């Protein structure tokens, strides 16, 4: 950048006293621990700012550092507190100072969910409608012990809520992840096959035809732009769904990888944005983080209110014209069913497809009679069962067509 006027003067930077430099390094470390994107370039520029006379005026320095190290809105909102705590010794809410807790601290809704789960149960009336795992005979026994594919096949048809043996649960998790992987590969392949160009690429056409005196004999086609579908998953984590959530979480974690653009939300009485946790590479760690949120939060399910929150605060950001919203819920609404209908209508207007997966649908004799599901169904493009691995696998052709 020698062409562009005086940049930071490194000799001046050397002049910053060692003490200040040490404090500065410690401050930048604190920021890093709080999830800020502070790299070497920021270290250098921060030092340059100190040397350029900003250090003499704390309010100016604060504002300058804030612009330098913030990268997104949560950083922007959090910065002043951290700065004051570090340099001016003011008290700051301890949560934001905890190293490594960046994600939960960044996300107030996540925090509130955590609080909800710590408080324990809400009203349990809804869960009563669903037979608990104890009612069903646990599917343990000889045949489950076989190795290889047959074991997975057996497992494929077992209703998730009947998986009681921790071994089997683990196997189901593995199978869900595998299934997600297979689906991902196939979907990618279809995507590539579909992406054949049809527009003329003039630049390359002219290049190829110079020797023909400019007569376009050999045509070059422009590759069609790859336009990924965005998948937005809203997972019901209420008590009535508790038997299903963990397998779904694992499955969704796998599937989200394929959809380069994907967002995930959990809801029961409130809505929480959990994409960050879902994108955790290590599936087991992602599950740990989420299961804590999903379990124990079992109270009523306010689907309508959660959707309202989604439509109001998240939809504009996470939904575009090629979005598919996947709602995984049994549709037991303890709130206002009419509100659910209205919010579903608003959601349907925004996105391309709404898929509603209902684990209860696979049960014999089940009819969608709950008020919630009745209000929602007119706006749903695909209403499918999702209680076994087999039923999840059956979704693939549909997802591929989106």
């Amino acid at each position, binding site marked *: 950048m020698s062409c562009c006027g005086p940049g930071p003067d490194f000799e001046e930077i050397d002049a910053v006293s060692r003490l200040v430099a040490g404090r500065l390094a410690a401050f930048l470390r604190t920021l890093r621990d709080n999830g800020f994107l502070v790299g070497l370039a920021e270290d250098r520029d921060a030092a340059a*700012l100190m040397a350029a006379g900003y250090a003499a005026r704390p309010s100016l320095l604060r504002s300058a550092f804030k612009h330098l190290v913030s990268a997104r809105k949560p950083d922007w909102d959090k910065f002043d507190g951290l700065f004051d705590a570090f340099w001016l010794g003011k008290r700051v809410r301890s949560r934001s100072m905890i190293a490594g807790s960046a994600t939960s601290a960044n996300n107030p809704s996540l925090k509130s969910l955590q609080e909800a789960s710590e408080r324990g149960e809400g009203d349990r009336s809804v869960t009563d409608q669903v037979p608990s795992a104890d009612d069903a005979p646990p599917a343990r026994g000889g045949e489950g012990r076989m190795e290889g594919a047959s074991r997975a096949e057996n497992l494929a048809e077992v209703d998730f809520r009947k998986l009681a043996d921790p071994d089997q649960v683990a196997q189901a998790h593995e199978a869900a992840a595998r299934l997600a992987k297979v689906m991902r590969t196939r979907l990618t392949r279809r995507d590539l096959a579909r992406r054949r160009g049809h527009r003329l690429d003039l630049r390359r056409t002219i290049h190829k035809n110079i020797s023909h005196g400019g007569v376009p004999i050999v045509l070059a086609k422009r590759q069609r732009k790859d336009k990924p579908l965005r998948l937005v998953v809203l997972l019901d984590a209420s008590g009535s769904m508790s038997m299903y959530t963990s397998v779904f979480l694992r499955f969704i974690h796998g599937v989200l990888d394929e959809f380069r653009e994907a967002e995930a939300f959990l809801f029961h009485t409130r809505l929480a944005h959990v994409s960050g946790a879902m994108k955790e590479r290590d599936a087991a760690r992602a599950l740990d983080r989420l299961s804590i949120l999903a379990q124990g939060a079992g109270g009523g399910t306010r689907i309508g209110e959660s959707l309202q929150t989604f439509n109001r605060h998240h939809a*504009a950001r996470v939904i*575009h014209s090629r979005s598919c919203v996947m709602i995984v819920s049994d549709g037991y609404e303890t709130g206002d069913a009419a509100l659910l209908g209205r919010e579903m209508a608003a959601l349907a207007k925004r996105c391309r497809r709404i898929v509603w997966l209902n684990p209860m649908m696979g049960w014999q004799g089940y009819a969608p009679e709950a008020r919630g599901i009745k209000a929602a169904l007119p706006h749903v493009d695909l209403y499918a069962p999702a209680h076994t691995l087999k039923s999840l696998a059956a979704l693939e052709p549909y997802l591929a067509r989106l």
Partner: protein
Amino acid sequence: MKNRDEIAQGLADCGYIADTELATAIALMQLLKRPLLLEGEAGVGKTEVAKALACVHGTELIRLQCYEGLDQSSALYEWNYQRQLLAIQAHRGDGASAIEDQIFSEKYLLERPLLAAIRRERPPVLLIDEIDRADDEFEAFLLELLSDFQVSIPELGTIRATTIPHVVLTSNNTRELSDALRRRCLYHYVGYPDVEREARIILARIDGTSASLSLQIARMVEGIRKEELRKVPGVAETLDWAAALVGLDVRDLHDAPEAVHETLMCLLKTQEDRVRLTREVAARILGKVA
């Protein structure tokens, strides 16, 4: 370092009322030679910042509007195909390589905003508007350009920047931007202005408003923003509304509740919001405006 008060004053002279933090950001842009990423709701005046900046520097504003599918040829450069074809026809018989040398020269190169921005004599302000609408690939390409300020054109070679432009990026946060891009930029979150600043903006931009009327308008808009609306009015809408009120010769909102209600369409852009903000609600908000 140019004093941030001077910068704020300069922006004000160009019709942009900035808060001190934004003035700091602009001072830093110059000091650290980094692009400035402005994020915030639609209609808070992010694009205006770039325009005002160009005015302050007395330089050209080059704008690249991003959209889905934006590619290098629309952002950086393109060959003038028609002229190339004509030239090939005209020089038929010269031999392929001679023609090639000729048609892939500066003469046939069409500058697009990015190339134009780095080839100006005087550093322009380069506004990359709504970067969140562009695809990831374009964002990555941009990153390379913004770090090296040079472009390589396969047929022509590398073109180095004559000047480094002042780069302003805006984002409405419809897509999450990459960490790499965020890291390269200074970040400033543009929120809705507070009442006092919005009143000053109205006063600066709309002829015929009085200090008291602009304050009333700003307070009223603040009240409306607190309602549950689908589309919260931005500063641009406020200015439209102020202009409408001035046009109707309104001197005091309290004296003309009818005109206030009828002109609310300047602020509310969806049917739902129009229905929600009934005459009574508008009157209630107006009642709170001193």
